[in-house]
């Protein structure tokens, strides 16, 4: 397999109620990534558009967005794996470039969650998983993650306070991120006394919905040289896995098998281990999700996640900084754009251009992006 680099990254602000259409939202990330890579449209070989279709009114959005960005006649298509759609797009882009089908590919993720009414969203929420065997009992995304929180806390004797510490960290950095939807500080006591959503998760354990877009451009080694790309960031490892949708078919309620397996693949391909990672972005749609990620990725042993956050080891100056851009808990979670936003953060870190949240001389960065309640898992390792 030939080497593949990320040569351009872009992201819109993540906001509540974007005052424009989906094509205009997607254009914001597109234009930033194109300016970043200093490319013209003729240099893009294909576009992969990523979102979660339950929020889209537009059918088959790839065509509309490619047209609006001036990316005809190159091929464009759509990919979806819920909340990790855009890292699935990146996996496809990697395969197309390393396999020689295209010299460069754009991965354009977006979600305008405010496109549908809250009543429509309330109705779709109940159909988030197995509609034949789970939804008839009255299920919701927070309750599924809450079941993993309950399983984890029961198994390891961890506390709701351990989960709240993750939100406090997220808010510490969310305040610094101009593109985050939630930028206020959050105190521990505030988290613990917040209204319950689905036990044991409370309001501050959950990320907010947001509208947003992200754009990642990849290219092969030849083009990186030919186009004079100044700071390419290389894809060193890329892993992907799936797990049963229905929780009745899961082995564990204190880990995600798809994340663990995707991580194993990514580390093996990169030829490194968890200790070599200098900065990470993990999928923290709920506080418990970040806790499980610490252990699924090997940053902590099983049951050792609480100790990691209590000792502030995942803060910017800790042994393994995690989500120092505020994470989804602060940034918001525009489903199809989320993975691309995580990739962008790590690319900026590896270029040394992350500003206030820059960690010291990172060599390897990791992105962990999950779809559904651990149904789909993608792990990407990047290196400068």
């Amino acid at each position: 397999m030939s080497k593949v680099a990320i040569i351009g990254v872009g992201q819109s602000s993540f906001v509540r109620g974007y005052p424009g259409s989906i094509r205009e939202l997607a254009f914001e990330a597109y234009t930033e990534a194109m300016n970043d890579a200093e490319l013209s449209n003729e240099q893009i070989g294909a576009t992969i558009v990523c979102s979660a279709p339950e929020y889209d009114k537009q059918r088959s959005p790839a065509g509309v967005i490619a047209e609006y960005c001036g990316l005809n006649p190159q091929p464009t298509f759509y990919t979806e794996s819920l909340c990790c759609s855009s890292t699935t797009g990146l996996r496809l882009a990697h395969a197309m470039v390393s396999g020689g089908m295209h010299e460069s590919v754009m991965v354009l993720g977006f979600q305008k969650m405010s496109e549908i009414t809250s009543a429509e969203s309330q109705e779709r929420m109940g159909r988030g998983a197995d509609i034949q065997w789970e939804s008839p009992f009255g299920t919701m995304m927070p309750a599924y993650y809450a079941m993993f929180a309950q399983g984890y806390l029961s198994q390891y004797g961890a506390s709701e306070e351990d989960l709240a510490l993750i939100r406090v960290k997220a808010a510490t950095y969310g305040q610094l991120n101009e593109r985050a939807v939630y930028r206020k500080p959050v105190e521990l006591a505030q988290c613990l006394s917040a209204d319950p959503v689905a036990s044991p998760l409370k309001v501050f354990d959950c990320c907010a919905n947001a509208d947003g877009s992200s754009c990642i451009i990849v290219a092969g080694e030849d083009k990186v040289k030919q186009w004079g790309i100044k700071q390419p960031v290389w894809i060193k490892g890329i892993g992907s896995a799936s797990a049963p949708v229905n929780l009745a078919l899961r082995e564990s309620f204190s880990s995600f098998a798809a994340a663990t397996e995707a991580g194993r693949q990514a580390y093996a391909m990169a030829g490194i281990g968890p200790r070599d990672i200098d900065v990470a972005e993990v999928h923290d749609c709920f506080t418990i999700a970040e806790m499980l990620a610490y252990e699924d990725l090997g940053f902590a042993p099983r049951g050792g996640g609480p100790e990691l956050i209590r000792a502030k080891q995942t803060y910017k100056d800790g042994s393994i900084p995690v989500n120092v851009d505020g994470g989804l808990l602060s940034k918001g979670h525009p489903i199809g754009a989320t993975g691309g936003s995580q990739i962008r953060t790590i690319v900026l870190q590896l270029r040394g251009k992350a500003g206030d949240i820059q960690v010291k001389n990172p060599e390897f960065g990791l992105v962990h992006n999950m779809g559904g309640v651990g149904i789909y898992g993608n792990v990407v390792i990047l290196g400068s």
Partner: protein
Amino acid sequence: MSGHKKPEADRRFARFGTVSFTATSKVNDFIDYLEDGQVCGTKCRTCGAVFFPPRAQCFKCRDQAAIEWFQVSGSGKLATFSELKYAPTGFGGDLPYAIAVLDMGEYKLFGRIGYVPLDEVRVGMELVPQAHQLPDGQIIYVFNRP
């Protein structure tokens, strides 16, 4: 065109749950068993695979003809649960309620906590799955104390 009548659809599965999102399935007999008070899974006679939720097609040996029903019996251990404070459309009248996974050993069930007071529910407690008729004619199964 032709005088053929469209075969009448078997919509028994539309009765499953407070709100059902599936009307027709190859395992519609599940609803009849539930009506008789039995929670049932399926077993493949060819390779011995046991399925819950039940299925009529075996992915292990790809046999579709040799599936038979079995009754879920005995108690299981509560693997995890969550009590909801908000509900999706159509479930608001059920609040507060808890969804849960019951581990029967050979297989697990995703369902709902029944008559156990929610402040007494603990991971690891012993519960039994039971058929449960709803007032409007819908039917589910819930987990109760043995």
